[in-house]
């Protein structure tokens, strides 16, 4: 039943609430599908969860390869620890120090039908690769009439403030890529989200820029389910339900929004709804629209 139809037969707020449950049902992870057995988890921080996702991806498909600067010894943020030892130099390797090369090379690997994971050491250094990402990766399928595509490509990069990073180790450049239709931009807020979203990104038929909040690499710790599970792309998640105002965010900022929402509840008696977009482009307009119809304030 469409939003418009429902709106005609129910009062506004109730419509929103009813549809909420319907549209915002999280696609359950593979491991939790039956809901009966307790899921085996392990305490992981964000970089360990990313490492786990990379390991699972490489284990299940020989065409998955991982490369970038300093990836071989485990990466400067330890996301690739143990992978070179496990999968060898052919699949996990260092590239020369050249971001336009890393992404250009990755596009070629993807265009040939393989599944490259290209790491850009800091999002602050992604700009030399901007041409390849915007003019090439994003447009490969469209401009070729679907004769070719770079769906196998995932570009992973740590982004965001970390306290001491200054101008060049703290940038959040995700918005630049949101204006390049054809490439998806995905940002996880926690270890369990990172693992599921990264696995979805790696095996997505579209090129993905996956921005990992470096602030959370060590500070965010969760019980993360073991085994392969996917979190759908293009879907936002309502992290906290509320009635008075909708807060939309992503990545490391979700924790800040939660803290602000707690203060609003305690000091101002305002109930906040918090939405994590997860995929910034294309973003889940329906979930946000539903929420704003309920709260009236974005």
């Amino acid at each position, binding site marked *: 039943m469409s939003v418009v139809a429902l709106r005609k037969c129910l009062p506004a707020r109730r419509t929103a609430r009813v549809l909420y449950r319907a549209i915002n049902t999280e696609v359950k992870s593979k491991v939790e599908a039956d809901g009966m057995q307790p899921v085996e988890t392990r305490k992981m921080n964000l970089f360990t969860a990313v490492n786990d996702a990379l390991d699972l991806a490489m284990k299940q498909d020989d*065409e998955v*390869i991982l490369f970038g600067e300093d990836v*071989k*010894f*485990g990466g400067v943020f330890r996301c690739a*620890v*143990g992978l*070179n*030892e496990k999968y060898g130099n*052919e699949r996990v*390797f260092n*590239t*020369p120090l*050249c971001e*336009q*090369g890393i*992404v*250009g*090379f*990755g*596009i*070629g*690997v*993807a*265009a*040939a*039908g*393989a599944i*490259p994971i290209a790491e850009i050491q800091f999002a602050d250094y992604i700009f*030399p690769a901007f*041409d*390849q990402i915007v*003019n*090439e990766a994003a*447009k*490969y*399928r*469209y*401009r*070729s*009439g*679907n*004769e*070719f*595509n770079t*769906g196998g490509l995932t570009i992973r990069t740590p982004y965001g403030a970390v306290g001491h990073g200054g101008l060049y180790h703290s940038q959040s450049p995700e918005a630049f890529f949101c204006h390049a*239709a*054809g490439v*998806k931009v995905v940002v996880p807020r926690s270890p369990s989200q990172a693992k599921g979203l990264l696995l979805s990104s790696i095996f*997505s*038929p*579209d090129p993905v820029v996956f921005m990992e909040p470096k602030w959370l690499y060590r500070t965010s710790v969760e019980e993360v389910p073991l085994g392969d599970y996917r979190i759908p792309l*293009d879907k936002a998640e309502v992290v906290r339900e509320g009635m008075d105002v909708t807060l939309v965010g992503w990545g490391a900022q979700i924790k800040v929004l939660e803290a602000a929402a707690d203060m609003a509840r305690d000091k101002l008696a305002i109930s906040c709804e918090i939405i994590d977009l997860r995929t910034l482009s*294309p973003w889940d*307009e*329906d979930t946000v629209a539903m929420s704003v119809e309920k709260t009236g304030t974005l």
Partner: protein
Amino acid sequence: MLFHRLVQTAVRRGIGVPTYRTFCSQLSQFDSAQQLQKAKASKPKDVLSPRQENDRPSTTYDFTTHLEIVDPTKDPVIPAYRVMDTNGTLLRGSERDLLLDEKSIVKMYHTMGEVAALDHILMQAQRHGRVSFHMQNAGEEALQVGSAAALEPQDHIFSQYRELGVFLWRGFDMQQVAHQCLSNAEDLGKGKQMPMHFGCGKLNMYTISSPLTTQLPQAAGCAYALKRRNTDACVMCYFGDGAASEGDFHAAMNFASTLDCPVIFFCRNNGWAISTPVSEQYRGDGILSRAKGYGMKGLRVDGNDMFAVHEATREARKYAVNQSRPVLIEAMSYRRGHHSTSDDSTTYRLSEELDWWAHNDCPAKRVRLHLEKRDVWDSEMEAEMRTMHKKKVLKCLGTAEKTLKPNISELFTDVYAEMPERLKRQQNDLEEHLKKYGTEYNLSKYQS
């Protein structure tokens, strides 16, 4: 055991005795300082300590007490390989050494003729408003067909935009060329790009894009993926002298060499990048001299000598496939046409220069003279061929003009693998708009 493996790698790569620093880079599994200290203490005595030799790079070199700032302009200019002179006479060896039978040579000459015919007519068509844009290939037919004929169907090809002969040789026929140039519904690219931006999955020819040189690092990556599959294939990557100045050239050469990618980087050095002559494009000895800097093999070839280009590409391909190594070919040629239909090269170069190349070093004429010397060709056959090609091109152009443009809804397809909601809504909005205001648009041109 780890160190033993390291020494083996070092010896194989010829980097001499590994330094202590290299040894330490393998110790990623040690995440405690104590473990690292223990490993350091156990290193063999003959490993050089970084404290003894500062910043020694991984290549071996001697020391000298002679101070000289080396001048590369003192090196001899690298000669271009040539097999046939400008009058079609073989300079050494016999016809058998060409490894091409008469039938093949005639077929290659025919393809060069097709390029010329398409070029000439599409150029005129643009001036008459029948086609929006065209880029000529005049002067580069030999390097296009000669190189393409040395490749195998399983090789993957990345192009720039002046490789029409390569597409035709591979099987991208005249009709498909016309469809793409008219951006109609039969275009494999669904009418989404400017003319001459071909691509064909079946022929392993990646769709051309306007940004220069972006295809080079992609070619290296593609070659890496093909190498991993143990295919008997290489990647061929065309680009021009101007494109070689872009950063992506450096990135590609470095990656291909460090990662052992079986790719042939084929530079069409035609002397001009729009209005910029090569004297303003680089200061070194062309593009080939750069290969050395990347530890890459390469050669320079007379790009207007179809046989030399063919042989050079054949040898380069063998090397790339057997050794899984990249190689650079610099084909020296001349751009006889304007950069494109948006350019008028008479504003920056003399007609005398064009005349010189037309009369003294014409790639098509050289092959024709060679064939005539072998009594396999004459002026009657030439006239016949030209008429046939002209007819065929005009027919293909006519067919393409009569073919409708793609359905307007194709504006929204293939942005992503699956169309997202937002685009579906936009597509619907446009449909609604056209239902209301369709008469304001020339909808009859489009497939419905």
